[in-house]
């Protein structure tokens, strides 16, 4: 078994199993935890929990006007690499085929050239995010190892993917294997670190929105 066989076989399969196990474990542990009975009377004229949740999700897509200027870098750069990652992950045909091979689901792909360009922009954006984290005293102070590991496991597939398509540094099959292995590491880390926000972000924001709406906030 060569490195690519290992990456396409045991490594990615175990990584996906860990991802599914971890996501369901953590998600169901939260969902079935139940919430305390709220004995307060809902304020009149507020939207229901669902609408309040949707509104909160939308509202938090942009920073509060008070902080808009101060947070302009985090806002723009955050959008760039999140959208970039989405385009690269879901727009590249080989990635779509990975999903199709597992689930049968497929959708149109973007031209490879677009993906390469977006991948490069995403890598630059992630680099900028790290520089900001390291140079901002406040951000550095509140950062933990989780933040850096999460950054690393996110950045690695982008860089290795770009190296693979560009044949940079090694033979294609080796680069492809390294890329798949880096994705495997990402999948294993995702449920247990801050990257779990990918699963919880909308749930937590909606819950917060529903909670605050009831109080008329």
């Amino acid at each position, binding site marked *: *078994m*060569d490195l*690519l*066989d290992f990456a*396409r*076989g*045991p490594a*990615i*399969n*175990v990584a*996906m*199993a*860990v991802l*599914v*196990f*971890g*996501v*369901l*474990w*953590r*998600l*169901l*542990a*939260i*969902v*079935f*935890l*139940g919430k305390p009975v709220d004995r307060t009377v809902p304020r009149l004229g507020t939207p229901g929990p669902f609408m309040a949740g949707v509104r909160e999700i939308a509202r938090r897509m942009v920073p509060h006007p008070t902080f808009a200027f101060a947070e302009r870098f985090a806002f723009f750069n955050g959008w760039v690499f999140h959208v970039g990652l989405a385009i690269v992950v879901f727009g590249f*045909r*080989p*990635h779509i*085929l*990975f999903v*199709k*091979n*597992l689930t049968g689901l497929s959708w149109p*792909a*973007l*031209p*490879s*050239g677009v993906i390469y360009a977006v991948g490069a922009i995403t890598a630059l954006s992630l680099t900028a995010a790290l520089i900001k984290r390291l140079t901002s005293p406040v951000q550095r102070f509140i950062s933990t190892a989780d933040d850096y590991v999460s950054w690393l496991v996110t950045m690695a597939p982008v860089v290795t993917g770009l190296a693979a398509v560009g*044949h940079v540094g090694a*033979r*294609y*099959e080796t680069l*492809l294997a390294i890329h798949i292995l880096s994705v495997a590491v990402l999948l294993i880390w995702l449920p247990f670190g801050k990257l779990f926000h990918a699963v919880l972000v909308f749930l937590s924001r909606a819950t917060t929105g529903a909670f605050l709406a009831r109080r008329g906030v």
Partner: protein
Amino acid sequence: MADFATLGDRLADFGVSRRAFLKYASWLGSLMAMTPAASRAMAAELAKARRQSVIWLSFQECTGCTEAITRSYGPTLEDLIFDFISLDYHHTLMAVSGEAIEHARKEAMAANKGKYIVAVDGAIPLKDGGIYSTSAGETNLAMLEETCKDAFAIISIGTCAAYGGIPKANPNPTGAVSVSDIIKDKPIINIPGCPPIPEAMTGTIAYLLAFGKVPELDHLGRPKAFFGDNIHDRCYRRPFYERGQFAKSFDDEGARAGWCLYEVGCKGPVTYNACATTKWNGGTSFPIQSGHGCLGCSEPDFWDKGGFYVPLSGSVGPTAKLIGGAAIAGAVAGVAAAAVARHRKSSLNKG
């Protein structure tokens, strides 16, 4: 092997002009990515070369490699080159049989000790004493070891000889191995493929004849001249890959339009061979041009890579079962964790 005139003299006897010979050498040189100066040197050395004794051993194989080399559509000169190789032993091509051919092999080995080339096609079975493939009462292993003992170099023709190939495919019932798994003290050149490109075989033999040394090889023992590039990088369908245009089946609109075959399992991106450039049948076509994805037949263990029609980016192995099991375990763990937390909270409230 009898004493013959040099290749140049013999070609002249056959009416082949020096110009034609130089053209052939240039063609061969360009095929092997040699510099013009090296091509000229190759022509000069080839002209001076004498008949090279070649002993061709066929083991666990399908004779496809021999079929391929005998159907070389190279220039007629190439056939003449073969006239200048004394093929002293070859099961399929020899007219004689029985004791006579074994005698020919041993005679050639004795007469050309340390100078002859051994070409091997087919894997070597080792299980149960190697009884699954024998010839003249000898196991393939015994014949290989005996013949290679005094050889100058060994050429493993085809993926079976080079890497074990199809006989070695899971579950490998005969314990098949490659030549390089057995022979450790001789130069070995691998010309893999199922079958190999005829020009890769003849070109490598010509190089050995001309320069008397092994050409530059890659990490899998293949001449870089023929196996230096992956098929994907040289494929005429590559622009469709870049544009995101893929055939989704072998008879859809994309397939008819000649789009990239990555989605139907083409292994071109991880396969190193000259198929996309040298092609087959005199440069007529190659598998991808004929509408089928590359199987990766010049790579080790190509038969066990998870399926010819699974895209390269797809996972292989028991993915569904593993994920299904993980989902059940994760759900149980999650619900159990929530139940434990609720119970503890309830106990605290009561306390």
